[in-house]
């Protein structure tokens, strides 16, 4: 696939397509096949949840889709870009422009305020500091943050508030793909529900794809589709939360 400008996907209406994706860790007797031929299509506007037992390959698949890890085999395009056709630098720049991350452990930088943490992707994309922090402040205010909370450091915020900052950080640069790794696992039921409502409210959009890796059955109701993984394969995809059945599977 020709790569003219990796920062700009060729077709904004394109989806994520994976066919026969494989990934193996280690070599020889120590080799562990994490992905054993994953086939998956995700359309824009969708919130897809990946669920399955520990070690089934969910996070590996997420890493491959986010361009954090190279696949060993198969084909995979994200907004018509095949990471394997891009250089490492181009892949990194693609992530900066088009992918937002919500990590399991929030991974907020302790020395930065909430607004500064949320502004990080904009700073990475070369925005001016003041402008980036103001823009992050707007997003955080929409999520219920006041001035004092904007200036608070992560240690001064509750788990739910920290995860909101993490979500704001994933959204602030308006990426087209948002990947969330166990976003509610460190939160209680109520906070988890609120976070998922926020994600659905702010992250889901008609030209945006949201992929959530989770063990948490309590949040399945927020998904459009749920893909079940077992032993490195997607064994079942089912509709959830009101998507038309044709999209399921």
């Amino acid at each position, binding site marked *: 696939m020709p790569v003219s400008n990796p920062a700009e996907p060729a077709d904004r209406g394109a989806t994520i397509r994976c066919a026969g994706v494989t990934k193996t*860790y280690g070599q020889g007797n120590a080799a562990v096949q994490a992905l054993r031929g994953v086939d998956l299509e995700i359309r824009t506007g969708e919130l897809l949840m990946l669920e399955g037992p520990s070690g089934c390959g969910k*996070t*590996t698949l*997420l*890493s491959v889709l*986010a361009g*954090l*890890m190279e696949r060993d085999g198969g084909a995979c395009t994200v907004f018509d870009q095949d990471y394997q056709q891009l250089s490492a*630098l181009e892949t*990194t*720049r*693609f*992530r*900066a*422009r088009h*992918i*937002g*991350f919500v*990590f*399991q452990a929030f*991974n907020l*930088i*302790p*020395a*930065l305020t909430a607004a*500064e943490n949320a502004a*990080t*992707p904009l*700073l*990475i*994309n070369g925005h001016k*500091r003041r402008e980036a922090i103001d823009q992050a402040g707007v997003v955080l205010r929409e999520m219920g943050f006041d001035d004092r909370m904007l200036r608070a450091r992560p240690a001064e915020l509750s788990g739910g508030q920290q995860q909101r900052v993490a979500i704001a*950080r994933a959204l602030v640069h308006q990426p087209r793909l948002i990947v969330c*790794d166990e976003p509610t696992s460190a939160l209680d039921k109520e906070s988890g529900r609120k976070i998922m409502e926020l994600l659905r409210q702010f992250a889901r959009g008609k030209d945006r794809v949201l992929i959530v890796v989770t063990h948490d059955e309590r949040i399945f109701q927020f998904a459009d589709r749920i893909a079940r993984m077992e032993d490195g394969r997607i064994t079942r995809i089912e509709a959830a939360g009101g998507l038309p059945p044709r999209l399921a599977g």
Partner: protein
Amino acid sequence: MIFIALRMLLGDRLKYGGLLFGITFTSFLVAFAASYFGGMMTRSFALITENSRADVWVMDPAVAAVEPNFNLAAAALNRVRSVTGVQSAMPLLLATTDARFPNGRFQSFQVIGVDDATLTGLPPLQGNATPAALRAPDAIMVDPGGTDGKLETPIRPADQWPAGNQPHLDVPTRELAPGDELLVNDTRVRVAGRADALPRFPPRPLLFTTYSTAQRILPPERRRLTFVLVQAAPGVAPRDLAARIESVTGLRARSAADFKSDTVNWMIENSEDTGDAITMLSIALLVGFGVTGVMMFMFTHENLKFYAVLNAMGATARMLLIMIFAQAGLCALIGAGLGLGLCALGGYFFGAYHFPFRMMWFAPVLGGAAVVLISMAAAAFSVGPILKMRPASFLAGR
């Protein structure tokens, strides 16, 4: 991104303090060692500085510095005076002698014999002493020459020149003053005043007298003329005159500036203190790098997760390297400033105690260069984990 890097650094007070300490320590020690060395070198040519009216110094061809030296034949003075372009030429005698104090204690002095007629070579004097007082028979002027407590004479008359030559060493003393006497080679010399000479390196008390008195009180030697101090005629360049004197007399002649350089070069090549200064600099660099490198590595390693997160979010390797070097750069800037400031402050206090401290241009340059070297080396030492990390491992928990 530099903003994030600096906030990360300043947020970890302990590591930041450790980094600053390492860099400040290095900067201080390197600048201090360089200033101390500069002070020693400056003092090594104090005699030349003191005789600022001498444009050219003439000496034995084998002499390469103020010290050590080898005396000239007395006739050299007139040979130099005969060279075209010489306005005046004065003799200067250098020697070392032991002088006995009234209580029997003895002390080594450098004897500086100056021209009887013009007293050229006599430094400024303290108090009401006049240079002419040196023309009195067996008159001397004394100066500590960078030492402390070596010009002490007994207070009580009973402790002075005791009968039977039994020394009275542990008696109350005071500083030598005009009117006091010393014994030099069985000749009593009288202190006519105290000089205000520049401190010497190596430090030792100085005894100024006239050329003729010096010849009389020192043990007889065929050659007593150490240097001929030449004043150039108006319009004659010292370096040209020096070359002319060399070609006419066969003696070594150097302009004052060149002779200072010769002395410093000789000291650098031959003095044990050069090795000591290099050792001090090496220790400063090693300790500085040890502390800074370990702190920087620990800081980077502990923040590796956040660098991985930034990398996952699209920060390129170049951005992350800039972050690391910005952190090292900030520490270098502040540490260098603190270290050099401390060095200047230390010099101010040490200078009051006659330490040979002189913060010349190369001291902050060396201190700054050492800081740049160790902070950049520490940063380079720390970037390894950044370049090797796999951001996916933080997502996958592997």
